């Protein structure tokens, strides 16, 4: 093709079309509104007829006519036709003179449209001597295009990004010259600018880092660093932001925006550190309390170990003031401690918490409050709800604790370092039961040299009167029982 091409005409068309699009949209909106009214009216009518709503909506279609710069009505891609229909189409539908702007797909070779497409392509990719342009030049060209779109405002950012994307591809194919590097860095920096406005802070940081890395050293201005610093600030990464601010100031030490940002970042960082310190104070307070507990236990000769994993389920919720290992901290009063104690009733698979079991209290003290003293004293009211057979009376109950269920912590070191997420590997066959006479106190149990408190002291309560005792419970610990 040797026909000289009139560039100006195309440019003029492009610009005018933008104005047309606006008019178009207005027309569309009017159309939409009309259709809506139509539907509303038809729905009303159909409702009156008793039909289901929504049938009328099928008739909504994108408007089929466009108005071009000359004011002519040009028929669009489909006038009653389904736009997804791809069959026997040479790319231009009926109208071979359709403006390239309205093409929906690239024309196939052999058609008139294909020639036009090639001409348009050459416009972009070939220079005045009809040779392919150098990648550097193409990169710069697309960059300029992207810049233009950026100037047009927010609605064109997406287009700008597309241009920048192609620009980057060409820049990468270009050479290692300073100019190309500068261009590459500028493209990345501009893309970052757009992303910053769009709120894609992560992309901004990535692009700026790449620009700094691959661009000329030093960069021509501090915009890249500034943009990266803004993005980091928004992401809350204040330390990185400081680094970028410093980098920017190294290029342009007097820049007022940058200095302002520096102050902002410093203030925010200070605040963030203040919040962190606040959190650490809480951590330290907990540590102090744990240490106090450890020393108390050490002084009394208690051995403490980690929670047995199944117990954790019971501990979630109400009992506050837990240690870092998750078990409740005993209260302290009158030189004594009040532990949270778990009572298990293995016969009926029930369990119960005693929230404040003082070391000086005996088991009888507590059980007397919870259970009837004897069968004679049993009533509906004082009997345990799960105790259908009425076996659980204080005079028939027995209390046991289990030994060698967990390994003890090193009582001379902070427990904090000894909690692990892995369950304690204990040889369960070595477990022993210890029978606790009811008049023994909690203190007696915990101080026993062989007993390791598994986080929460746990005791098993059975009744001599039930068959469970004879048939299951006692045989379990045959030969491995001792008395406290």
């Amino acid at each position, binding site marked *: 093709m040797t026909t000289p091409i009139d560039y100006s005409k195309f440019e003029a068309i492009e610009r005018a079309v*933008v*104005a047309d699009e*606006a008019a178009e*949209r207005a027309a569309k909106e009017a159309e939409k509104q009309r259709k809506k009214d139509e539907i509303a009216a038809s729905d009303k009518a159909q409702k009156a007829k008793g039909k289901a709503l929504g049938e009328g909506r099928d008739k909504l279609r994108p408007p089929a006519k466009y108005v071009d710069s000359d004011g002519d009505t040009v028929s669009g891609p489909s006038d009653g036709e389904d736009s997804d229909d791809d069959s026997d189409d040479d790319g231009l539908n009926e109208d071979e003179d359709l403006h390239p702007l309205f093409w929906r797909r690239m024309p196939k070779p052999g058609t008139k449209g294909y020639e036009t497409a090639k001409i348009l392509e050459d416009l972009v990719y070939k220079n005045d001597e009809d040779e392919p342009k150098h990648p550097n030049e193409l990169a710069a060209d697309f960059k300029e295009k992207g*810049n233009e779109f*950026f*100037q*047009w*405002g*927010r*609605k064109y950012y997406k287009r700008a990004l597309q241009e920048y994307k192609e620009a980057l591809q060409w820049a990468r194919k270009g050479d290692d010259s300073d100019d190309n590097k500068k261009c590459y860095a*500028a493209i990345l*920096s*501009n893309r970052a*600018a757009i992303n*910053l*406005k769009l*709120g894609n802070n992560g992309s901004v940081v990535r692009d700026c880092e790449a620009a700094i890395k691959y661009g000329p050293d030093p960069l*021509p*201005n501090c*915009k890249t660093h*500034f*943009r990266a610093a*803004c993005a980091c600030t928004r992401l809350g990464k204040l*330390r990185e932001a400081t680094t970028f601010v410093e980098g920017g100031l190294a290029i342009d030490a007097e820049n007022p*925006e940058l200095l*302002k*940002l520096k*102050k*902002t970042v*410093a*203030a*925010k960082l*200070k*605040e963030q*550190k*203040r919040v962190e*310190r606040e959190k*650490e*104070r809480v*951590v*330290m307070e907990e*540590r*102090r309390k744990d*240490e106090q507990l450890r*020393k108390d236990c050490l002084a009394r000769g208690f051995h403490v170990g980690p929670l047995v994993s199944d117990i954790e389920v019971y501990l979630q919720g109400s009992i506050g003031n837990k240690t870092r290992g998750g078990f409740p901290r005993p209260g302290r009063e009158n030189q004594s401690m009040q532990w949270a104690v778990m009572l298990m009733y293995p016969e009926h698979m029930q369990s119960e918490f005693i929230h404040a079991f003082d070391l000086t209290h005996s088991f009888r003290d507590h059980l007397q409050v919870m259970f009837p003293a004897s069968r004679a004293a049993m009533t509906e009211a004082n009997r345990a709800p799960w105790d259908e057979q009425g076996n659980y009376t204080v005079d028939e109950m027995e209390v046991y604790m289990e030994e060698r269920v967990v390994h003890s912590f090193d009582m*001379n*070191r*902070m427990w*904090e*370092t000894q909690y692990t997420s892995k369950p304690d590997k204990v040889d369960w066959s070595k477990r022993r039961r210890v029978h606790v006479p009811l008049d023994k106190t909690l203190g007696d149990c915990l101080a026993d040299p062989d007993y390791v408190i598994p986080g929460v002291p746990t005791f098993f309560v059975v009744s001599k009167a039930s068959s469970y005792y004879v048939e299951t419970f006692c045989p379990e610990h045959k030969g491995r029982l001792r008395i406290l």
Partner: protein
Amino acid sequence: MDQVEELVGFLRAPRPDVRKQAAETVLQLTGTDAGVVLLLSTHGDDKDVLTLLARLVGDQEQIASPAAAALVNMSTNDRANAALVEKKALWSSLLETLKGLQDATASGDGMKTEKPVPAQLKTCVKLLSNLTTSVAGANRLIEGRLGRDYAGLDVKLLLRAFLRAPAEIPEAGLVLTNVSRLDEGRDIFLAEDGLASVKRLIKLVTAHNPVLRRGAVLTLRNCCFDQARHGALLTTTALVDTFLLRLIGPEGIESPEDFADLSTALQDALNAAREPGAQPLRREPEGDVRRGIVETLVMFCSTRQGRVFLRDHNAYGVVKVYHPTESNEDTSEVVFKLVDMLLGDEEDEDDDNEVTGASVTELEPEPVSEPAVEVISSSDPKEMEEIAQAKGDTEEDESILLEVD
């Protein structure tokens, strides 16, 4: 009883070989506490064992040596110690002998030397370290041979000798520790230009010999009592970095935020330790020394400058990890105190920053001038909303971002 008195009497025998024998026997006796008590119970002015031994310190080397060693043992007894400190004659001969340290440790250019120091001198240094444990003793040493006008000269002498050959006379570090408890003693180190001696002491914090480490750390700790000098100590020496490094164990500092806040020197050290084949970091094994380190940090917290410095260098990050590994209860308590101070807020902190984050958001964004085209499209109310929203959160970047390159 008589035998002992006789023995003590022989200490001033006219014949040197007798004196020597007596001195050696007395030395053997002082090997046990009971022996020391026994010797001290001999009374009478001219038969006072301490005076006699003291005199012998100035005697020929063969006699002076066991005599000095005997005194070292005896000075562990409080009563004897107090008495010895009072003896001017002893101080004279001691300091006179110590002059020899200068030559013993000097090499031609005054730098570190590897010559072995004679045993006699070592013993004298040990004796000094015992004698200076009391305030009176320390004062005596500072006074020195030449009296008040030339105070500190002997200490300086000892200090220089020590820094030249620390491995030979580790007890000199303890002498320095004792001396630095007093204001005057501290001044001897701190008044130097550029804190040269302090810097060399800091290098000894990582020495092999625990006695050396102890001497160095405790001396530096005492120096930090001087609040006026905190600024110089913090900013011109590697004191804080070295001390913090001693608290870091093989696990290093795991959290990246904590790591980022450390000083560059510490970061480098931590990174170097992670290299394959590098020695992993080891915490200071001696409890006393660790305690000294923690106490020094606490002392820095007594001034605002110190607190700010420690917070900026994330001392808390290091201490937090070290704390659970501390097995000594008392030291652990001190650490809790340190942590309280590091984590505390300064009372007047919010006043000094006039430009907070809030005022930046009040900045008026510069109007974005866009071609006429934009205006048309923004007549749609929905678009206006979008644009307004966008403008709202790009307060900082309007003006700079207007131009793209």
